[in-house]
């Protein structure tokens, strides 16, 4: 299954002792790639569409992790930026209207509309950013929640671009006559549209992950974490709060915009209620469950939150006779809610924390086998990153 794909690599992959350099790390990555490859080749449309959806969600989760995980600015409004990105893409890339009343479209290339979706969403983020200078913690969280509702209202009413309540069609990515949405032979192998999308999304996610990972290891990334851990302290140390918060909002919104455009162009359709609060909350759940302030945590969290319910759904459909009258969707939702609670209770550092703990155990086991001293458990600064809004009293 896709869930096991990125298991091998923690966020410290670039550290000297990173898992990329160890035999076991390399073996796990290889195993993950083979799993992905198997799903790619033999998964069929059901599993591939789950995988594609998860990859898109992972891009947005990464974006939210920049803002909330690294920079500590609580946001429940990510779907607003996704919506802005998606409608930018639809306006630039959509087919020109045929009938009067059709939503507008300029018919531009994919290479224009995908970056533009990110850029316009980033501009929207830059507009919202200054608010974060004044508001803290939950006050900012609720204002960002208001963005989702304001966005819904705007998307309903700007019918010329969004198509109003009925929604509108979205352009499929493609170059010239080649389109990711239609099956084509590549090097003599016939690929389905799901497989093509998978390749595209994997590339976009990989580029975003490497970019975010590098930014977070730079001066800007350290400044963001300083602001998260102690805003007043960071300001005293000479961190420019305005720059850092704006930077986080812009980068986060850019990724959200790109993810929004891809999310809508994959099924080729979206209505204003696609960009709702529940989706926003799912992204927050993804970063908390996967791991706050971690690139791999974002991806694992997206797998848990967006792939797992669909996997449960697909599995329970194959044996729905045994469910005993309860709609499987509701049962899955209850399991999902219980899993969220269990994860937060028993593994506060998220899935990435679980994996790090597993690695620690393995390392200790190795050392003992070699007869050396058991490795000391050294808490790295990375694994300690928590999202401490106003340190909990509870």
């Amino acid at each position, binding site marked *: 299954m896709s869930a096991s794909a990125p298991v091998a690599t923690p966020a410290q992959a670039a550290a000297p002792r990173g898992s990329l350099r160890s035999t076991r790390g390399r073996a796990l990555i290889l195993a993950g790639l083979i799993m992905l490859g198997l799903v790619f080749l033999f998964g069929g449309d059901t599993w591939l569409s789950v995988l594609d959806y998860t990859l898109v969600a992972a891009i947005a989760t990464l974006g939210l992790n920049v803002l*909330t995980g690294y920079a500590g600015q*609580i946001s429940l409004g990510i779907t607003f930026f996704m919506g802005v990105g998606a409608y930018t893409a639809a306006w630039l890339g959509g087919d020109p209207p045929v009938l009067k009343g059709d939503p507008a479209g300029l018919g531009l290339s994919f290479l224009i509309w995908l970056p533009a979706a990110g850029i316009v969403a980033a501009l929207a983020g830059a507009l919202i950013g200054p*608010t974060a200078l*004044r*508001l*803290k*913690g*939950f*006050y900012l*969280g*609720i*204002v960002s*929640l*208001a963005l989702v*509702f*304001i966005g819904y*209202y705007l998307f*309903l*009413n700007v019918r010329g671009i969004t198509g109003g309540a009925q929604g509108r069609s979205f352009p499929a990515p493609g170059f010239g006559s080649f389109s990711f949405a239609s099956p084509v032979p590549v090097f003599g192998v016939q690929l389905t549209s799901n497989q093509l999308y998978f390749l595209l999304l994997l590339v976009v996610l990989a580029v975003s992950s490497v970019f975010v990972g590098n930014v977070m290891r730079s001066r800007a990334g350290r400044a963001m974490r300083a602001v998260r851990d*102690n*805003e*007043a*302290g960071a300001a*005293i140390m000479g961190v420019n709060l305005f720059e850092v918060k704006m930077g986080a909002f812009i980068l986060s919104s850019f990724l959200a915009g790109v993810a929004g455009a891809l999310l809508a162009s994959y099924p080729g359709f979206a209505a204003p209620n696609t960009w709702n*609060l529940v989706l926003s*909350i799912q992204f*927050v*759940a993804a970063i*908390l469950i996967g791991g706050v302030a971690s690139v791999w945590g974002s991806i694992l969290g997206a797998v848990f939150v967006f792939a797992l319910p669909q996997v449960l759904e697909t599995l329970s459909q194959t044996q729905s006779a045994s469910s005993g009258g*309860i*709609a499987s969707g*509701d*049962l899955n*939702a*209850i399991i*999902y*809610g*219980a*899993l*969220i*609670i269990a994860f*937060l*209770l028993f593994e*506060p550092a998220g899935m990435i924390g679980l994996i790090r703990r597993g690695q620690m155990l393995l390392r200790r086991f190795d050392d003992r086998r070699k007869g050396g001293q058991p490795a000391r458990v050294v808490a790295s600064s990375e694994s300690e990153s*928590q*999202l*401490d*809004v*106003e*340190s*909990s*009293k*509870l």
Partner: protein
Amino acid sequence: MANFIQLVFAGLSLGCIYALVALGFTIIFKASEVINFAQGEFLLVGAFIASAGVFDWHLNFFVAVLLAIVVTVLIALAFERFALRRMIGRPVFSIVMITIGLDVILLHGVIVKWPQGNRSPATPFQFVSGIDIGGVHFGATDLATIAVTFAVCAILYVFFRYTRYGLAMRATALDQEAALAIGINIRTVYALAWGIAAAIATIGGVFLAMNQPTFDATLGGIALAAFPAIILGGLDSIPGAVVGGIVIGLTEVLTQAYQSSFAGFLGTNFYTIAPYLLMILILLVRPYGLFGTRKVERV
């Protein structure tokens, strides 16, 4: 003029429901600095049990409401005892997320238990009953909503001002360590906060359901509409929750009535976002709401 008074009355009644919802948020936030995202589902569970009590189990209205209160309070206490108590010292955001987990479970639990969807609300009134004064119709449900809200506020006022546990809760909200030092049992305080919030949520849910001829599982979503109210008044202020709720209720109703004639270009559903816009405006001037406590930050 009669029309205006009618609208103000409707806004006041809606605002009182928001105030009841907001009170639940505020009491929990004051005690533990956590926003309980499951508050909306406490409304839902309360309303469903009250309705099932009256129509399925043929109980008296007041017995049914009491039963609903008992059940929601027990859920809240169990959640506090078995989940939240283990989260002490964890980042606030994780605790908020865990309440979202509870929200998901409660919502779908209700749907599984009562799959048929639409239900009639439990109510002691005829839907259209009420009194008419000078061309203004004061509906019985609305009057009862306002009266009960004020009664709840009065009880809370007395509780927080004069009783032992009320004082303990205020002391904990003010300074947790100092409260511990003088022998206040913080766990009792948290349990009390959750219990009170759940009870108020049930009352709010019952009145909210009464507003329409039927209601379904989307009822809990109304808690989201109370967010502007709690932020407007200040997250940690109980009077702020009531004032915020009423301001938001009035804003929503008056915008809905007058916006089409003054600013029709804004579209038909502008009233749904008017409370949020008002909230953002007020926050830009006062970042901690109207009555919220400004935090002093230490480095």
